[in-house]
């Protein structure tokens, strides 16, 4: 069911014309295909995951950011060494708010550290492999970690350093430390997305399957694509604990090496961020027979729905009853807050341009606040995140995507064990569970809302001028630009250093934050009293000139 709104909005086809009219002809032609007027029933095609127009001012980052920053960064006991000049390691040092909670004071936690080979000119000219091996040895000698991961920055691929060979050599030398590399040079692919895929491949190849420990718990799932920003995974864990659901492995918020190595022992993969981790879901399905299911713990209603879906999947009456009890326990606190806030937020409008899943998930929270999403888009998603996975066979693989390795996965001769029979899966699907699939964002958005992929700065400013939304959601680069326009911006990467926003407690946090932002009296102080007077006096002065 998609959202509807009674508010009158500008004609979207005219808006699209305005967005592209200033562009050079070739650019306009290209951008036109990424600016789509939504129809939730027919779901038009969106051009996505294609190269950004050079110079256009994009939100996007690079493959390294997606691989090291997003997917591998949150695991606390891996020493992540950036192989390259100092910048990449520096910028991805503690900036993503991946919370982690070591179980004891003695447990490893490298998240507050930045490790880099700090490549110098002579390493570029004569090769950096030797220095890399020295760095790996020093990391091993100093910390004796369980794993060391190497992340390639742009020059590494160009000068031909073989990070994989260096890693293999050191791994063999140590014997008790897993060492592996990632070819996630910033120029690969067209955005962070390439890095997610590379990270998924690397974790699957080098980590998953190394730990066959059978953990306690009746209902064991892997939580995929939840990076514990602002403590999101902690809130989900709190709810799961109450329900009696065990997180077997987390990819990768608050995770450890042994968790990731144990992922094949779970019975379900619950996917939060489809874009960054769907590859892992597919590969675990194929090799070990663990189905994946799209869930969404952003929004109280969505959380309740996701819990019910998980209970339905496990098909256990006791679990279903427990889930209902938990929902019944949690909802009153949520309802109390939303009842207070709803009259102040209802009818307001939001725009979301962020991420590869967040622009979808957060629409649920805005909907709970009675707010309408008038335009949304992703920074680095693919067509399936917009239109649903049914379009996957029709997506053309271009030169940039071809460069990203697709692992050939086959069923494991020993460990492949389908958790559900074909018939059971069909039955679950008939009950409305999205098993091994995702319906995308557009089917939920209202008719004639705008969908813009990889939005440019220029397009953002235009949209704000035209729609004057009550709130705009994006990242830190956009934050103060939009706020200078007098529109509050909610950061949906860092949550403006707040959160968590998942689950029931998270929903309450979000309601309160949005209430504060869209109703903050500070926005009414923008004009100084004398400016108001000057304007009105100017008007009266010019009027008096006319009469003279």
């Amino acid at each position, binding site marked *: 069911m998609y959202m509807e709104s009674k508010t009158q909005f500008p004609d979207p086809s005219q808006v699209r014309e305005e967005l592209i009219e200033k*562009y*050079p002809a070739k*650019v306009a032609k290209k951008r036109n295909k990424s600016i789509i007027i939504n129809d939730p029933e027919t779901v038009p095609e969106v051009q996505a995951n294609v*190269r*950004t*127009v*050079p*110079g*256009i001012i*994009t*939100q996007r*980052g*690079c493959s390294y950011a997606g691989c090291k920053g997003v997917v591998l960064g949150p695991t606390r006991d891996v020493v992540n060494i950036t192989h*390259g*000049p*100092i*910048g*990449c390691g520096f*910028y991805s*040092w503690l900036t993503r708010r991946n919370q982690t909670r070591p179980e004891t004071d003695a447990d490893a*936690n*490298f998240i*507050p*550290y*930045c490790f*880099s080979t*700090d490549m*110098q*000119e002579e*390493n*570029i000219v004569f090769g950096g492999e030797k*220095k890399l091996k*020295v*760095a*790996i*040895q*020093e990391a091993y*000698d*100093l910390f004796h970690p369980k794993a060391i991961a190497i992340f390639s920055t*742009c*020059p590494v691929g*160009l000068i031909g350093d073989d990070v994989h060979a260096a890693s293999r050599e050191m791994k063999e030398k140590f014997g008790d430390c897993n060492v592996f590399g990632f070819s996630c040079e*910033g*120029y690969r*692919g*067209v955005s962070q997305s390439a890095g997610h895929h590379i990270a998924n491949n690397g974790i699957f190849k080098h980590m998953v399957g190394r730990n066959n420990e059978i953990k306690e718990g009746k209902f064991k799932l892997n939580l995929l694509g939840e990076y514990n920003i602002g403590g999101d995974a902690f809130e989900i864990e709190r709810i799961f604990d109450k329900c009696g659901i065990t997180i077997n492995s987390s990819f990768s918020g608050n995770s450890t090496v042994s968790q990731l190595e144990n992922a094949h022992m779970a019975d379900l993969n619950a996917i939060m961020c489809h874009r960054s981790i769907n590859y892992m879901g597919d590969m675990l399905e194929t090799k070990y027979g663990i189905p994946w299911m799209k869930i969404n713990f952003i929004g109280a209603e969505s959380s309740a729905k996701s819990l019910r879906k998980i209970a339905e999947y496990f098909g256990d009456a006791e679990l279903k009853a427990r889930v209902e009890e938990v929902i019944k326990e949690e909802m009153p606190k949520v309802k109390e807050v939303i009842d207070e806030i709803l009259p102040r937020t209802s009818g307001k409008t939001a725009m979301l341009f962020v991420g590869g899943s967040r622009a979808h998930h957060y629409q649920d929270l805005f909907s709970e606040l009675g707010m309408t999403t008038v335009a949304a888009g992703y920074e680095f998603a693919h067509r399936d995140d917009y239109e649903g996975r049914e379009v996957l066979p029709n997506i053309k693989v271009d*030169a*940039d995507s071809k460069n990203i390795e697709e692992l050939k996965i086959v069923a494991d001769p020993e460990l492949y064990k389908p958790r559900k029979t074909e018939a059971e899966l069909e039955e679950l699907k008939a009950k409305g569970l999205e098993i091994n699939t995702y319906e995308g964002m557009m089917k939920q958005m209202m008719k004639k809302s705008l969908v813009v992929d990889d939005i440019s700065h220029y397009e953002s400013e235009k949209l704000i001028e035209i729609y004057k939304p009550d709130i705009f959601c994006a*990242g*830190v*680069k956009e*934050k*103060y*630009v939009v*706020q*200078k*326009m*007098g529109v509050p911006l909610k950061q949906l990467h860092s949550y403006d250093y707040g959160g968590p926003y998942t689950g029931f407690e998270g929903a309450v946090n979000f309601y309160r934050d949005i209430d504060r932002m869209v109703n903050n009296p500070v926005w009414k102080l*923008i*004009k100084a009293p004398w400016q108001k007077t000057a304007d009105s006096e100017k008007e009266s002065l010019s009027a008096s000139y006319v009469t003279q």
Partner: protein
Amino acid sequence: MLLRHTTKEVKVREGLTINPAKTCQPVGALYAALGIHGCLPHSHGSQGCCAYHRSMLTRHYKEPVMAATSSFTEGASVFGGQANLLASIDTIFSVYDPDIIAVHSTCLSETIGDDLQQITKKAADDGKIPEGKHVIYASTPSFVGSHVTGYANMVVGMAEQFAESTGEKKEQVNLIAGWMEPSDMREIKKLSKELGAKIVLFPDTSDVLDAPQTGKHEFYPKGGVTIPELKSTGDSLSSIALGCISAEPAAVALDKKCGVPFETVDMPIGISATDRFIMALSKAASVSVPDEITSERGRLLDAMTDMDQYFYGKKVALFGDPDQVIPLTEFLLDLGMLPLHIVSGTPGKRFEKRMAEILERSPGANFKNGLGADTFLLHQWMKNEPVDLLIGNSYGKYIARDENIPFIRFGFPIVDRIGHSYFPSVGYSGGLRLVEKILGVFMDRQDREAPEEKFELVM
């Protein structure tokens, strides 16, 4: 403990940098370029560089930081980035209409050997640069120097590519700003005005990265040195470079191109460095120092003498960038404090020499800069010989919390407090702010930890 793996035992490392006290060149070039009015900085490399640099500068300033990127893909990395840069220039002038595009390179474009001079020339020859508009460039490979080097290189680019000598001298002095905050640049202009010296300050990020909330986003805020001002620097009487690492190279370039003599002084942080700056500027502009400035100096000195008991003999660890670290170390010594452990990731013989001179007054002090001078080492030194105060960028808070010592944020980046873009650290009033900050953290600690019977009302 947050930094639970940091050991007391110091081992020499040759391959691994841990918790760096520097970042890479392009972010400095981007920052410097924002100090030109009507300029859009452009990063010639992968998208990630520009995204990272804009994000870090945005977190530091809580302000819009606009910049574009050549968005390299694998193809561009193999075949060269010329097509991407030409397309960028075309798109930028059509959509964002800047007066200037300031292009800096990255490790990617440097490794493949893109020649920015040749590509920008081609852009001009192909008519992609509209009449009256400019594209300047700086080579800023990330594998050389640090963010400070990148800043210096972009400022050199401004001097080399804009300065003109008409043969007629102008009664003005060039002040070349080392990497300092917009608040500092505003203070330098204020002091110059008080002195009655006519100056051209470049770059100048005041009114760019401390822009007011007006309800309207000015894509090109009102601040920044203008193109006519930059052109006129070639006719100035002389230049004063504020910082031997981040500013002097541009002064040298101006001297080479237009024969403008220069003097280098330390960035005016603290009383002695500010004294030298005032002396240098009054001499260069042939003006005498007004009583107003002498009084300002006196107020700073008054606070230093009034409160000396709280400073004297206190040990300090500090990390940061050379042009700040040099005068700050000197100021700490002037306050009677003992700078004990100092690191800076930025290399440079000049830096080492200056620090050696200054640290003669602090026997037993540890100082290291360049490769291997990271905050992991600094923290290890602190474990071996504890200090009373840590000064550095926001990353220092992890060390300060673990070691339970007072911490003052100073340098780049500061991403967890505001103030640095509004209140200066340079000049006498900047010195007063530093004095107040240091006293504040010491006294807050005393108030928090004193036994009840020793809790003091008057301090």
